[in-house]
């Protein structure tokens, strides 16, 4: 079927819920309204209000109650309406979801998938456009996944729903309806923890994910360059092996993400490559991200998010080094 990312996520939830009655969706406006992006549209009618639960407007308890459900044998899928609001449940994720397994030595586990839209570029209000993946990857204990296309979204979510771990499933708002893809009707897995070569080439390596994948692809194509473009798909745990494999081949690394540059995922990747492949590099590593301050109002977002020009200039610098 030819569907966009919204349809792919809806379909993944639908198929998983048919097979496994421990899966329960909960969140603000996810039932009758089908979610503010309509990702859960139609699921209330299919599965009933005990499995598609409209909650009070309270993020900490949406995540906290999900943790309780998970420990009690369910597999909850809380939706946080926007990643900017997930900070209200940050304590529950960091203090509890990430730690119950280790602090009970495996006695209690938290199988759940927290879904939330991330990143900007669609002229939303304040606090609707954050890219917070580094916060959640930093702590350990939380798996952080971010698809960049409908096929990966369905496969990654299907895999996430089989894991006995807390998974943050970050859905780039801008990619929800940007394009459609042919996606198999049936369930399939896209492995978690494994990056994907979206392009193969030999001049340089670009490591990216989420909203920046189509932008990077376009720049590489427009400039008629030959590059490995690696879509991380899973941010934590990081697929270091795939990155090193490519960098050892090309000798040049560019990292592109929409999140703030400083102390970000790019810094982590650059550090790992510097530690393990420094002498394979023929140029300094370059990172491209948003400027190091909080997300601006939508009138300014085009001056903030990395665009084709910024990425193109970074590639020129990388290749001229």
């Amino acid at each position: 079927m030819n569907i966009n990312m919204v349809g792919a996520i809806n379909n993944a939830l639908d198929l998983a819920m048919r097979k496994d009655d421990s899966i329960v969706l909960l969140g603000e406006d996810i039932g009758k309204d089908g979610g503010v992006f309509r990702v859960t549209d139609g699921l209330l009618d299919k599965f009933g209000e005990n499995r598609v639960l409209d909650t009070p407007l309270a993020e900490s308890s949406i995540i906290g109650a999900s943790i309780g459900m998970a420990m009690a044998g369910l597999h909850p899928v809380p939706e946080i309406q926007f990643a900017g609001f997930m900070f209200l449940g940050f304590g529950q994720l960091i203090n509890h979801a990430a730690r119950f397994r280790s602090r009970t030595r495996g006695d209690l586990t938290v199988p759940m998938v927290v879904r939330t839209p991330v990143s900007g570029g669609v002229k939303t209000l304040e606090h609707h456009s954050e890219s917070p993946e580094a916060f959640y990857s930093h702590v350990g204990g939380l798996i952080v996944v971010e698809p960049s296309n409908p096929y990966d979204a369905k496969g990654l979510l299907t895999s996430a729903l089989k894991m006995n771990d807390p998974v943050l499933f970050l859905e780039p708002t801008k990619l929800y309806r940007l394009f459609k893809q042919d996606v198999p009707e049936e369930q399939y897995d896209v492995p978690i923890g494994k990056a994907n070569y979206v392009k193969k080439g030999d001049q340089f390596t670009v490591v990216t994910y989420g909203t920046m994948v189509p932008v990077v692809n376009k720049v590489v194509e427009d400039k008629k360059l030959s590059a490995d473009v690696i879509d991380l798909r899973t941010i934590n745990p990081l697929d270091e092996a795939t990155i090193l494999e490519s960098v050892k081949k090309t000798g040049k690394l560019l990292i592109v993400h929409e999140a703030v540059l400083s102390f970000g995922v790019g810094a982590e990747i650059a550090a790992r490559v510097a530690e393990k492949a420094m002498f394979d590099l023929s140029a300094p590593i370059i990172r491209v991200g948003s400027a190091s301050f909080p997300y601006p109002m939508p009138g300014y977002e085009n001056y903030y998010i990395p665009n084709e020009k910024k990425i193109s200039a970074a590639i020129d610098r990388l290749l001229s080094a």
Partner: protein
Amino acid sequence: MQNKAFEGSIDYFQVMDENGAIDKSLYPQDLSDDRIVEMYKSMLFARNLDAKTLSLQRQGRADTFAPLVGEEATQIGTAFAMRKDDILVPNFRQHGAYLARGLPLESYFLYWKGYEEGNSKVKEINALPVIVPVGTQMPHAAGIAYAQKYRNKDVAVVAFVGDGGTSEGDFYEAINFAGVNKLPMISIIENNQWAISVPRNRQSAAQTLAQKAIAAGIKGVQVDGNDVIGVYKVVKDAIDHARDGPTVIECLTYRMSMHTTSDDPSKYRPEADVDKWKAKDPLKRVGAYLRAKGLWDDAKEKQATDEQMARIDEAVAKAEAFKPDPKSMFENVYSFIPEVLKEEEDDAVKSNFWM
């Protein structure tokens, strides 16, 4: 036009007064004398254990520890009212309730010696581990209660929170979630009058903490938290009606000792305040009741204490013999060991970091 939009009130319960006299009209019919003896022994055990742990901490043999002395009736009355399958969600001062529910004593000592393995048997007794960030356990309790209702199980979730904990957003979010979904969740506010150094009247301007239930549209009651029979009664009633929805129970008790071993209460509270509560001691009144009925005496008290101390010493020895395995840290982060973690573990082994 003006009329009353809402009228509500909070009932206060006391079954056994400070002298051990019973209000027969409220006495729970299912509660036998034998059961009260068991509750008394359990309270005595909690107090003996508290004293022993404090002494171990002062000798450097246990880490920072939160004593419960004075709060035994709230915890033991609750634990005894719970059915086997009911689920206990503690905060961090509920070792009385934990042990009454069957937590192995060795686990208790392992926890307070600073090892995660002390939390590894909580599932066996239908409990969550100790929760340190105040109030954050309440949404978990609501979620667990949701799962019971979803699976149509006749199980109640009993969650403890302190007076300070009721100021946390998570407390209200959880009872609100439980109210909207009519969940079998019972919140026990162990109101010991102090959140470290902040007294009850600086915690909330509300006349009772139980009335916070009213804002969530659920039932709230207040009970003398030093009256083990009163606590048993109100918790039992709430559990009997758990299928109809949640209840908040405020137990009025007093923290006779420090918040934890790392603070000195004389800095912030007058000794006279403590003395006033000594007269309301939870063990003294039930002890007086049992003695008056010929069910308890000095010989029994000594025998019980000796047995309890022997049990405690045995568990301390076991816990002190525990050898931590640093690999267990790496093996229990995820359901699998990611390459990046495996490498950190291997590095630690190779460099003899743990030796």
